[in-house]
């Protein structure tokens, strides 16, 4: 996105007078990617903006790949009976759809935002470890290739679900091993990226940018980075034990050798629940930038938002077994995890109340970023409420592993994280590219996405309540109508996302030049202290905040 020649003739806010245009070398010799052009620029780049761009395009590519799998799943589920895929391939699609969307699409999207925005928002010239940053990104295409390649190995990709429960994993072919290695590499990338983010935030803030003055997006990423460093090694451990159970005769998850299949689930969800917040917290951060900007009013409770985010992060480590109410844990275990899960609704409620209070008596306008933020607020809260329903042990025992759960987590992951990512893209696109996107098309993208999203997932609540299990390629006749509606919604949703691609490409090619601060109410450093488009290198002299 940043490879576009600049069309502006701005005065640079902080007094550098060297040429900032892309494609030129700068006068003191730090051009793109150490002076390389073409593809080598992107392979060797250590610039946070280039790397952010790489993350975002990578994420979009994986979003398309995972999306095609989702549409294949919905195609098979359009009618009862097996029409298109055998059950084995169907399971492979559900597994890879989940892994690719979580690790390939959503997480890299927010790391892309972090790379672009954190240095600009805290007044730093770049990320703390520039080469490490390059390496964190370039691990990803290898991991993604392993995931996709697993389809072409004997036995195909693993058909075990993204949760990779033991001991089903032991029955899988070589594709399982490729997936395990892919998870290792993805984890490495996340940990390196997180260390970089933590170091940057703690050490490279501009004078006067105290922790409690940082934009909330930076706060949520600081906390998320700690979650990643704590949670990813746990997942690496779980899949490594799976690997040795498969090939080296260990029995971590095999009762015949003294192990326990349920142990895998505990380890996985000890990672898996914080993972939910690893995805949700940066999304909260984006929303906390967008809503005040379009309300023209400061965030209602900045400090309480920071505390609520921290509280959510800490509690997220003690609720994992609510994913496992049906494994047969003792009643005290069920009660503990139920109470802890209910408690997490309190800080989450604080956040929702804060966003609404921020809008209250503001001066609201509804450009595309704000529309996506409102879509997020409304639908994420709906997903939060179904989460509260699922926290109730007896109700969960009825709904566990049904389409109700599928609906619930897609409200949180798609209407939550993805809507927030869309809000962020439209919000910062003018800053990144120097051009305005097409507002009418952006709004079309929002409304199509909103309507088709609900068409897919709202009806899945009914399917789950009525008793349709998840991860089945074929279903009893009473579920046919809702499945048909859901499938039509899925095709519409998938096609609507091509509109995003078109809007972004159109913006880069032929958008109107954007002003330094296209959004009246935006107030963080990238809007107030940097020209549009942002120079390749920013804040070579730190801004001083009063």
């Amino acid at each position, binding site marked *: 996105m940043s490879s576009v020649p600049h069309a502006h003739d701005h005065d640079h806010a902080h007094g550098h007078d060297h040429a900032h245009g892309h494609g030129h070398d700068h006068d003191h010799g730090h051009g793109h990617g150490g002076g390389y052009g073409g593809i080598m620029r992107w392979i060797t780049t250590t610039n946070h903006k280039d790397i952010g761009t790489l993350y975002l395009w990578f994420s979009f590519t994986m979003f398309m790949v995972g999306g095609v799998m989702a549409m294949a799943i919905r195609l098979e589920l359009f009618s009862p*009976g*097996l*029409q298109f895929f*055998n*059950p*084995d391939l169907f*399971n492979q699609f559900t597994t890879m759809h989940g892994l690719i969307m979580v690790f390939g699409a959503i997480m890299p999207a927010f790391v892309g935002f972090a790379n672009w925005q954190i240095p600009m928002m805290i007044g730093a010239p770049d990320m703390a470890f520039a080469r490490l940053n390059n390496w964190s990104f370039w691990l990803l295409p290898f991991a993604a290739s392993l995931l996709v390649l697993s389809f072409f190995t*004997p036995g195909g990709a693993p058909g075990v679900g993204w949760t990779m*429960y033991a*001991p*089903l994993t032991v*029955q899988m*072919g070589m594709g399982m091993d490729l997936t395990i290695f892919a998870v290792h590499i993805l984890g490495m990338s996340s940990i390196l990226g997180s260390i970089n983010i933590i170091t940057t935030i703690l050490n490279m803030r501009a004078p006067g940018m105290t922790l409690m003055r940082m934009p909330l997006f930076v706060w949520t990423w600081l906390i998320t980075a700690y979650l990643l460093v704590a949670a990813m090694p746990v997942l690496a451990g779980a899949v490594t034990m799976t690997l040795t159970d*498969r090939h080296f005769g260990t029995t971590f998850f*095999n*009762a*015949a050798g003294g192990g326990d*299949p349920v142990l895998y689930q505990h380890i996985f969800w000890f990672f898996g629940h914080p993972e939910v917040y690893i995805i949700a917290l940066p999304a909260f951060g984006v929303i906390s930038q967008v809503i005040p900007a379009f309300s023209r009013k*400061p965030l209602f*409770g900045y400090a309480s938002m920071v505390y609520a985010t921290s509280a959510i992060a800490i509690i997220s480590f003690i609720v994992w077994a609510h994913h496992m109410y049906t*494994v*047969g844990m003792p*009643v005290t275990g*069920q*009660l503990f995890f139920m109470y802890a899960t*209910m408690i997490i609704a*309190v800080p989450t409620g*604080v956040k929702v*109340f804060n966003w609404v209070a921020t*809008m*209250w*008596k503001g001066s*609201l*306008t*509804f450009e595309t970023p704000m529309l996506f933020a*409102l879509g997020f*607020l409304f639908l994420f*809260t709906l997903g939060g*409420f179904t989460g*509260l*329903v699922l926290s*109730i*042990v*007896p109700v969960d025992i*009825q709904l566990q*592993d049904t389409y109700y759960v599928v609906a619930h987590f897609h409200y949180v992951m798609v209407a939550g994280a993805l809507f927030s990512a869309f809000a962020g893209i439209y919000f910062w696109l003018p800053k990144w590219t120097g051009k305005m996107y097409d507002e009418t098309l952006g*709004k079309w993208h929002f*409304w*199509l996405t909103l309507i088709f999203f609900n*068409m897919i997932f709202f009806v899945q609540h009914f399917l789950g309540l009525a*008793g349709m*299990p998840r*991860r*089945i390629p*074929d*279903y009893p006749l009473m579920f*046919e*109508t809702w499945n048909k*509606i859901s499938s*039509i919604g899925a095709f519409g949703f998938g096609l609507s996302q091509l509109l995003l691609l078109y809007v972004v490409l159109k913006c880069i090619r032929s958008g109107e030049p954007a002003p330094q601060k296209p959004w009246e109410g935006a107030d963080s450093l990238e809007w107030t202290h940097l020209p549009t488009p942002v120079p390749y290198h920013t804040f070579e002299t730190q801004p001083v905040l009063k």
Partner: protein
Amino acid sequence: MMSSQSVRRIFLLACALAAAAACGAAQALEWNLQPAASAMAAEIHDLHEYVMILVVVIFVGVFGFMFYACYAHRKSKGHVAAQFHENTTVEIIWTVIPAIILVAFAWPVTKVVIAQKDASAADITIKATGIQWKWDYEYIKGEGEGIHFVSTLGTPRDQIEDRAPKGEHYLLEVEPGTEVWVPIGKKVRILTTAADVVHAWWVPALGLKQDAIPGFIRDTWFRADKVGTYRGQCAELCGKEHGFMPIVVKVVSQEDYSKWVGDRKKAMLAAADDPSKTWTLPDLVARGEKVYAANCVACHQANGKGTPPAFPPLDGSKIATGAKAGHIDMVLNGKPNTAMQSFKQLNDTEIAAVITYERNSWSNKAGEVQPAEVKARRK
């Protein structure tokens, strides 16, 4: 803002698509929990309703504020932004009140959780073992003790593969005679375990779901209060045929149950195969075809070609055309770390029949195996 006309057009389009889809399906729309057939399921219904009321009230309240702000505090209406922020009183209120609501709600829930876990003092105990992809039932305590059968999907492959019209209980029916019968009003304890991977035993109308974990025994219970047939499915992804292992529970009166137990026991005695009987080749093949259809066809396919590499072909395979002993051992013991599990729960005659069928079908011509040969290789 997008023109209201285009918004309406999209909405109408979506409605039209939804209506078209709704017309295409024959069955009535189900959109709530199935009618309860036990007190526990009824409790779950109530809890679900309470929490839904709570959630809807809060949702409408919070988003009432949001939509009112969207309407009244718009810039286009000339609303000027107030600049207030931080209000300790308000922030304490909206932290403490939800916490109080949750504590108040946790109390009735806790009582149900404790009751749901109490599987003690059961009248009848049934062990349900999940096996890829069927359920093995053993009545181990109470009236009916000793009854043992394996329950597989009753829906023919023709219906699944769209070659025949689908029946009323498509995918929710088991082979006739393999339903789990229980008497009304009695406390039935279900022990779950599994032979291979994790499965889950779930009957929505009875209000219970319990994972079946290989190597461990878990329990759950129900007390049905309505006569009827209740259907469920395996709820934990257990491999290729996960969607095809239904559970059917028939709740009957005490008299019907006692009669069923009597009939069942007589039938078991009569049906017991004599493993020392010598069979003719055509008889074995005919019997074996049925065993194959119930146990093997999902993976190895009706044409014996399998779906390689995970599920190898039998047609022309080394094992199915080679030494008898190797073939018998494979069926008896399975192959570790693959989907090929042990079928030792089948009796000697059934195993001999299915092996003979496999050795004399498609292009295979490798002679017969008698029950006595299977018996000899059992350990």
